[in-house]
């Protein structure tokens, strides 16, 4: 078995990112789209941590720390928006949210 290097981690990160992208493109439930966004953020975190480890530099880990904080606040605000939207329109389905279309 070859030793695990930076490229292995980067490939896992890319695959996870594309899974998140696929979720955003395919799913139509706002909550699941939000979870896919979290997947993409986590993929970026993994790539940054791997770079940080293999370049022997802690800056990557500090950026990951900040990303986790921003993601937490983003989820709080986003879920509050979803609840407000559900109260008004009674749906969490993106195809029903066409108020700006007509």
């Amino acid at each position, binding site marked *: 078995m070859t030793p695990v290097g930076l490229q292995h981690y980067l490939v896992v990160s890319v695959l996870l990112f594309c899974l998140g992208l696929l979720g955003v493109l395919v799913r139509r*439930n706002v909550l699941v789209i939000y979870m896919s966004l979290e997947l993409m953020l986590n993929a970026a975190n993994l790539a940054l*941590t791997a770079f940080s480890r293999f370049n022997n530099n802690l800056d990557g880990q500090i950026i990951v720390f900040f990303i986790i904080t921003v993601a937490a606040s983003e989820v709080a605000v986003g879920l509050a928006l979803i609840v407000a939207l559900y109260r008004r329109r009674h749906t969490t389905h993106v195809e029903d949210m066409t108020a700006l279309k007509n």
Partner: protein
Amino acid sequence: MQACLFYLFAALTLLCGVLVIANPFTRNPVTSAMFLVLTIVSLAGLFVLLHAFFLAAVQILVYAGAVMVLFLFVIMLLDLKEEERRKIKAGAGVLGLAAAGGIALLMIAVIRQSNAGVGLKPASAEGSTLDLGKRLFTDYALPFELISLVLLVAMIGTVLLSKKDLK
């Protein structure tokens, strides 16, 4: 040993990631949320393998603890019985798969060609929490303070958005 653990955690992460977005048995968002928790926990395992112990702990505490509980609360608050019955459209599925797969192949090809990390050896005792804390409170003190402001703004925004009548 480390390689085995890496492949185990990587496979677990990707498998649970697939089950988050396309579970063949159910469309229930609660199931997606549960598999997202599993994804996050196995990512924390990968962080431990990368010697980022503090980040692994924060990942489990903040993501699996706080964020996912928030998700589950909102899922339980909303009545999603009607949402379950909707299916993924076949055309959207194929196009989305093509787009995401194309981007994945492109990025993996770039990683393979760039020879990223060739010759780089990970340090033996890197990523200790002590060093991270020192960097955070010296070089990154200003961003650290600003991020607390971001949290405050998010809190005020959430309280305002949750009010019964938005004025």
